[in-house]
């Protein structure tokens, strides 16, 4: 018996589009379940020799075991082989965007269903649409390390920073941007129809008065509540916290920034110029704690970026370009030249900064 190859190893060119061939016997659900179970165990990257031996016995015990295994291998092979024509990074990014699009498509399907029901169509082949999280319905989204600039119909300019999502909701009565995740820079245009412009964040409503500002939403963690940071560079912005929408709004003028939560608007502080450097594609730090620096840098990369406690309080100053996929890797490398630290990397998705 030829030695079967294992999931997670290079299996060589597999059938590029697995599909059933006519006349093949069906395989029982029970055997498929066992095969899936083995596949999952052997794809872990931590399988033991004893497991591999047991697997070989299972694989050889019945021809259907081997057939089910081959089918699963060809699915895995299909993914691995895809890298020969499209890079994993592009595949990831495409699938993530497709999820956004399919959220919208499901919304469209609801409408089609409604229309179809009234004309008496038979539509039994389609399952009912699944309700989606709001964040999936976002119309514009950026992945880690991406930035994106948009100009809307009314001349309003938006820039999305890394890992951000917004919904653009313009109607005859108003212009509304919903900040679902991350950070946006808004430079409002003047609307010929005179419609009011608002930015809705999970913590409250922002009403700009002819202006340019940055809003950044933070989900909160480790006891910190979710918050929005508003930094105004031109004009002024009124804040209506979500818990008190009818109260007199707090006014934030140009040159100021504030943090607010659903029920509390913090005191205004003077604008941190470095907080908007991303708009020009730059990452800036001035005597920043390394732990804060890395937490901020982590927003711009996929994967895990950690640090050892003993380097957390080192200080770093500098400015780096954010352009390009390896931008954050270059920034990390430069830390090794400036500070007594070393970057240990296990994969391109896992990096940790430790003392040298």
């Amino acid at each position: 018996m030829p030695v079967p190859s294992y999931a997670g190893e290079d299996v060589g060119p597999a059938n590029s589009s697995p599909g059933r061939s006519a006349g093949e016997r069906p395989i029982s659900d029970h055997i498929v379940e066992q095969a899936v179970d083995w596949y999952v165990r052997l794809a872990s990257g931590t399988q033991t020799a004893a497991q591999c031996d047991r697997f070989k016995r299972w694989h050889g015990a019945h021809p259907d075991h081997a057939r089910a295994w081959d089918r699963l291998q060809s699915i895995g092979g299909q993914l691995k082989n895809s890298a020969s024509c499209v890079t994993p990074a592009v595949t990831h990014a495409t699938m993530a965007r497709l999820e956004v699009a399919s959220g919208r498509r499901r919304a469209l399907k609801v409408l089609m269903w409604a229309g179809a029901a009234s004309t008496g169509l038979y539509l039994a082949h389609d399952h009912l649409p699944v309700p989606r999280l709001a964040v999936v319905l976002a119309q514009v989204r950026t992945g880690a390390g991406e930035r994106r600039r948009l100009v809307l119909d009314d001349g309003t300019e938006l820039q999305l920073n890394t890992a951000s999502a917004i919904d653009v909701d313009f109607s005859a009565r108003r212009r509304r941007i919903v900040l679902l995740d991350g950070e946006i820079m808004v430079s409002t245009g003047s609307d010929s129809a005179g419609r009011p412009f608002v930015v809705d964040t999970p913590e409250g409503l922002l009403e700009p008065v002819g202006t340019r500002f940055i809003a950044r939403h933070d989900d909160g963690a480790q006891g910190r509540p979710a918050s929005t940071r508003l930094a105004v560079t031109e004009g002024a912005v009124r804040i209506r916290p979500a818990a008190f929408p009818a109260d007199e709004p707090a006014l934030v003028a140009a040159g100021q920034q504030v943090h607010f939560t659903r029920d509390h608007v913090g005191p205004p502080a003077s604008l941190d110029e470095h907080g908007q450097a991303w708009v020009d594609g730059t990452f800036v730090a001035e005597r920043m704690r390394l732990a804060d620096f890395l937490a901020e840098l982590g927003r711009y990369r996929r994967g895990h970026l950690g640090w050892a406690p003993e380097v957390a309080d080192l200080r770093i100053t500098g400015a780096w370009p954010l352009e390009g996929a390896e931008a954050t890797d270059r920034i990390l490398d430069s830390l090794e030249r400036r500070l007594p630290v070393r970057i240990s990397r296990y994969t391109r998705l896992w990096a940790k900064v430790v003392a040298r």
Partner: protein
Amino acid sequence: MPDRASSIEALYGDHHGWLKGWLRRRVGNASDAADLAHDTFVRVLGRQPVALREPRAYLATIANGLVVSHWRRQALEQAWLDALASQPEPMAPSPEERSLILETLEEIARLIEGLPARVREVFLLSQLDGLTYPQISEEMGVTVNVVQKAMARAMAHCYKAVYRDAF
């Protein structure tokens, strides 16, 4: 029962114009609508003959499926173009590469369609990026046990997507 060819000819003659209009309202342009109308009748030819009490409802049901795949293909292409534009070194694939890439992505999308985002991410990190479960667990901030469960769900899902009819 009238013979099959003449009944399809009658179906085409009576409803082709209506179907094109119906499709045009859905896809928004005449040339896609004409292509989809053509494809709809090709499908009708390939099916078992049925006695049609409501021929337009029948045609619209088939056309509806084609419209959905049409949107799906468009959404995929758009997602891919956006993904390309976000890459550090934008590539300009030739038309042949382009169709190969889109076909590849379409197969992957079909495999993972319907899986929750996290399960899909686990599956792709394992099978596309070749990460081990401990690495995925670290990357996504979940336990190895959760990674394993997600992998089992994803593999069973993909198996069904490809071999559903062969069960």
